[in-house]
């Protein structure tokens, strides 16, 4: 349930604004401080919780600010544009805007965008986009024209998608709307034509957008009072072509269709939008929060003194002009649930806000807003926090490294990487490492010959990477069948999905011995026991004394018959490792990895039968080796534990039992495994019996020592 809280005015004195209201409200680099730009000549920095201005800057008489001031989060400076072309940059200490840094550009600026974690971007009126740094390096550079004649930018927004900046802007030409999406990781500008349905010949009045999974959800509030949603793919299938996207009705009649002006729309989170405008034609203007998932009105607040039809949303505050005053209304959106929407959950009702009951026609609204099932709470807020956490003063080696990744040679990247790793770790170290890996992978995909193996190994060994931080890495290594990297990943990553673990297992089992021979694999988990194996020597003694118990002597008649057929082979099987040392090291990495049975089992079924048999043979071998000593452990530095071995044997048999039973070569293995497990069970039961006898002995022993119930001793007391 969403709620609007008691609002408050930010300024005691009315803004010196024209009829259009302020130009913009933008966040500054400190929380709770906002830059308010009025449409005249003034920029004011407000601290919202204190409701007071912290600073005010004005341009000279005759000049006029044309673009709202923003804060450059990387430097903490403020940027504003006046007279369309003149860029001013200043900071808190500056008093007079005339004396601060000035750059005159060659084209007219539409907006400057700045969000945390990214370089500010300048959007020109002709649709060209420049980074601020590039622009300041050469202010008079030529700015190309992207949009056609008479095409006017109506609205624009800048956000981060998976740590990459994306800018979207909407243009209008003769009642047709176009959306341009600029992605900065690929430098692709995609153009979309927003198609209106035939019957809906209405002009869009206000836009808002948010990112939902792989789409930008663009919402528009039309002059007919309805909210429409358009889904624009972030990764277009064919970026060059002009594509068409259809908009669909999301909410019906949220504002009066006759409202000429003063309507605005803002997406608050995945399920909530804020709408500013008169709900009925005759009524006063209202600020309301709608739940798009359930199509219900969640909260509404009347603004009797009228608004300018502008609505800004930062953090948990909504900003709007109410009458002549800039008003802040804090709001709350909780996770929407059906119970909440239908009123089954109890909510503390704010007496100030009257929630209207709107009945929804579920038939007509079907398929518009109900599709989203992911009720993750305010993805956007979370993302912002993450970005905030990672914003740090830029470390030169990391930027250099990121730049190097994009274009330099493998050697050079290695040098840069070493430089970067040499400096002290910053809090955002792991995100940078993640970025570097993603950058490298991106380049690998683009250039098939480029494969910076050493760099990747070094990066994995920083021990800060995880599967989710660089999702493509293991897939890429699987593609390349680079078992060394896969082994490293298995050892280092805590969060490998079971499907990937299984894919690694498949590769490890199927890769040829000759290709394994060339690779350099960490053999630390496989110690001396494979050394024996590789020589092919059979040590008869080790075979007999497993925990002092010989499975050969077990009186399992049926099995014995089978086994006597090939006694030599059986003996060999129990002592020599069925796989080479390198393969054993790789398989041990699999044994050590974390998994969840339910997710692993289906994937294990896909492994070919002979590989299953081989793996089982290896596991059986390990089990025998384990049982050779009293502690039930394998020698070596980091060997697989008995539990891991047993779990994997059980898993493999669970997944492939029918197959394994049918295979003639696996039958003997199963029988010997069965016999051995049986003998182990009988050992355990014997041990339990012995324990009881020992306890009796101990009791007897105790009684002997306590026999002296009465004694007389000599004690010298002080």
């Amino acid at each position, binding site marked *: 349930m969403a709620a609007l809280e008691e609002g408050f005015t930010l300024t005691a004195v009315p803004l010196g604004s024209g009829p259009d209201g302020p130009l913009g409200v933008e966040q500054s680099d400190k929380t709770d401080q906002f830059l308010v730009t009025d449409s005249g000549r003034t920029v004011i920095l407000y601290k919202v919780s204190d409701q007071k201005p912290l600073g005010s800057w004005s341009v000279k008489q005759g000049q006029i600010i044309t673009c709202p001031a923003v804060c450059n989060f990387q430097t903490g400076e403020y940027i504003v544009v006046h007279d369309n072309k003149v860029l001013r940059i200043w900071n808190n200490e500056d008093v007079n805007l005339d004396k601060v840094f000035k750059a005159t550009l060659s084209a007219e600026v539409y907006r400057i965008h700045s969000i945390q974690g990214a370089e500010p971007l300048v959007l020109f009126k002709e649709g060209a986009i420049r980074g601020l740094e590039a622009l300041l390096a050469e202010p008079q550079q030529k700015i190309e024209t992207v949009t056609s004649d008479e095409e006017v930018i109506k609205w624009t927004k800048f956000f981060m998608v998976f740590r990459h900046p994306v800018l979207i802007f909407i243009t209008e030409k003769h009642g047709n709307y176009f959306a341009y999406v600029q992605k900065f990781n690929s430098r692709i500008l995609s153009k979309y034509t927003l198609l209106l349905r035939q019957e809906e010949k209405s002009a869009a009045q206000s836009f808002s957008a948010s990112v939902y999974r792989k789409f930008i959800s663009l919402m528009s509030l039309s002059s007919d009072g309805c909210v429409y949603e358009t889904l624009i793919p972030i990764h277009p299938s064919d970026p060059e072509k002009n594509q068409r996207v259809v908009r669909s009705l999301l909410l019906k009649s949220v504002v009066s269709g006759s409202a000429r002006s003063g309507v605005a729309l803002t997406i608050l989170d995945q399920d909530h939008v804020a709408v500013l405008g008169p709900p009925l034609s005759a009524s006063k203007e209202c600020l309301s929060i709608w739940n798009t998932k359930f199509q219900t009105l969640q909260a509404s607040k009347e603004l009797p003194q009228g608004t300018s039809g502008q609505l800004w949303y930062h953090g948990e505050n909504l900003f709007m002009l109410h009458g002549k005053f800039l008003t802040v209304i804090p709001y709350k959106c909780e996770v929407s649930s059906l119970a909440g929407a239908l009123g089954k959950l109890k909510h503390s009702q704010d007496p100030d806000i009257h929630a209207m009951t709107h009945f929804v026609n579920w038939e007509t609204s079907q398929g518009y807003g109900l599709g989203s099932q992911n009720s993750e709470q305010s993805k956007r807020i979370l993302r912002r926090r993450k970005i905030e956490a990672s914003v740090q003063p830029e470390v030169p080696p990391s930027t250099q490294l990121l730049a190097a990744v994009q274009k330099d040679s493998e050697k050079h990247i290695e040098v840069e990487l070493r430089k970067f790793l040499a400096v002290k770790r910053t809090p955002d170290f792991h995100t940078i490492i993640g970025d570097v890996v993603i950058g490298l992978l991106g380049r690998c995909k683009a250039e098939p010959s480029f494969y910076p193996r050493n760099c990747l190994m070094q990066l994995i060994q920083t021990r800060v990477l995880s599967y989710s931080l660089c999702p493509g890495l293991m897939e890429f290594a699987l593609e390349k069948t680079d078992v060394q990297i896969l082994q490293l990943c298995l050892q280092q990553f805590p969060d490998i999905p079971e499907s990937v673990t299984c894919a690694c297992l498949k590769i490890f089992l199927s890769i040829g011995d000759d290709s394994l021979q060339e690779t350099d694999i960490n053999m630390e988990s496989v110690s001396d026991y494979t050394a024996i194996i590789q020589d092919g020597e059979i040590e008869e003694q080790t075979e007999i004394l497993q925990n002092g118990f010989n499975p050969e002597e077990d009186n399992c008649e049926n099995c014995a018959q089978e086994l006597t057929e090939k006694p030599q082979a059986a003996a060999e099987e129990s002592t020599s490792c069925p796989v080479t040392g390198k393969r054993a090291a790789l398989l041990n990495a699999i044994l050590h990895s974390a998994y969840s049975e339910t997710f692993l089992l289906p994937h294990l079924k896909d492994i070919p039968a002979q590989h299953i048999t081989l793996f089982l043979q290896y596991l059986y071998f390990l089990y025998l080796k384990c049982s050779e000593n009293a502690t039930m452990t394998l020698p070596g530095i980091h060997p697989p534990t008995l539990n891991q071995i047993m779990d994997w044997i059980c898993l493999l048999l669970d997944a492939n039992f029918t197959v394994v039973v049918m295979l003639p070569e696996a039958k003997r293995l199963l029988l010997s495994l069965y016999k051995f497990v049986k003998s182990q*069970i009988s050992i*355990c*039961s014997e*041990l*339990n019996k012995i*324990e009881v006898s020992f306890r009796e002995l101990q*009791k007897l022993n*105790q009684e002997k020592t*306590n026999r002296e*119930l*009465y*004694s*007389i*001793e*000599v*004690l*010298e*007391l*002080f």
Partner: protein
Amino acid sequence: MDAFGGPIWSMAASPSGSQLLVGCEDGSVKLFQITPDKIQFERNFDRQKSRILSLSWHPAGTHIAAGSIDYISVFDVKSGSAIHKMLVDRQYMGVSKRKCIVWGVAFLSDGTVISADSAGKVQFWDSATGTLVKNHLIADADVQSIAVSDQEDSFVVGTAEGTVFHFQLVSVTSNSSEKQWVRTKPFQHHTHDVRAVAHSPIALISGGTDTHLVIRPLMEKVEVKNYDAALRKITFPHRRLVSCAKKKQLLLFQFAHHLELWRLGSTVATGKNGDTLPLSKNADHLLHLKTKGPENIICSCISPCGSWIAYSTASRFFLYRLNYEHDNINLQRVSKMPAFLRSALQILFSEDSAKLFVASNQGSLHVIRLLEGSFKHLHTFQPQSGTVESMCLLAVSPDGNWLAASGTSAGVHVYNVKQLKLHCTVPAYNFPVTALAIAPNTNNLVIAHSDQQVFEYSIPDKQYTQWSRTIQKQGFHHLWLQRDTPITHISFHPKRPMHILLHDAYMFCIIDKSLPLPNDKTLLYNPLPPTNESDIIRRRTAHAFKISKKYKPLLFMDLLDERTLVAVERPLDDIIAQLPPPIKKKKFGT
């Protein structure tokens, strides 16, 4: 009084304290009215089909929950009828057990009923709907006890595996008002069943078959890391269970259902420090006196001359006369005990065995003159008006003039036995008295308290002695104050008036009042300095507290004569060996 429902399995007093519920073998739940002078039957609740093993009141006193076999009933107190019958699943790990016994229930003010049962489950029920809300399987064996904190934000359960689990009501997410019960901490301090648990504001207390009482402080409630934050394990009752007839060298041991009388052995050999001497005569087990009926023995005493034994159960008082004829003992019960001698909390004989002092559980003290084979009631000291406190510790002066008696909190009263009147009252102290004794000759009363303070009070002067004032001014050594167990017995050396001998379960100590007191910098446990050291060094390192930890756990220690001490050890292994075996856990295989 009889509840007329067969054995009583459970009892619960109402939150207001005016009513008592009793759960009986025949499945009846009976409500009794408690008035200051009597307990009166009020009415029966709907009868259930099997025994009622646990009972709990709703904090408002309107409903009760009763745990039976296989189900829990919720009753409305006003109507006495069962509102809900909540069936407990017999299944245990997929195996159907024969019965599921609900060992414990707790009713919370929000209507939740928590149950603990023999299938190892702790379950949460909604008493309004009679439905199961949540199930925690916590043990392979019975969950036997449950206790809820006063704030109802945490509770504790004890299992037959010796484990104690702490459950807490915690927020689902931080800052969220929605809370749920979460099993937070397991504690394994017991080897056997945990039969009873209690939840104090700052600690979990558990006790069970292994005879230990464990106090586990809740670290989050402890503000300062001090001695109170330490885990405490209490093994022995803080009472004297052994009495000694010094002249005849007899020891009387008190067990739950019998008394044993032993004559100490003797030796003719001598030896040096640390030697164990060969026995010329072994210790003799003279008498094994079984009680009649099921009641436990509360207290017992043997007279200093060894010819009288007295003991008391909850409802009866017994006095025996012993006659020794060479190796034969003739035991003769003194019959026709007066009606006022129904039961006693503490019994004491005077030094000359001519008088018997009995502290009865109504707070009065009876003085009885013992004659050959009979007795005569001399006087009864009535309790101070307005107090209902019973006296639980007695001490008599060796000259027989003074009798000191202490309750749990109201100070120590000293009576003049000759004039049969109250002589004075030692001011009340915050902590209960654990041991009392009156020194010979000086008639100084030595009082040990549970906080390990020791006071010396001069009865003739009616004031604390100079030594007591000095030690109070300087304070006891911090290690002395941090001991776990209280002083349970104090005795004196007849020839050395400056010595006080006292002991707890882990040490005995001779306080030499003539030596300087130890301060916190000196070593408290000062082992005997080597004899080859010069006298000066020995004197410099010596202080008033001479402690020996040679015998532990020490149940009793007393001075038989000037040169003989008797110490009774009770090895824990012996106690454990007599316990039923705990639930066996396999060590090998799974």
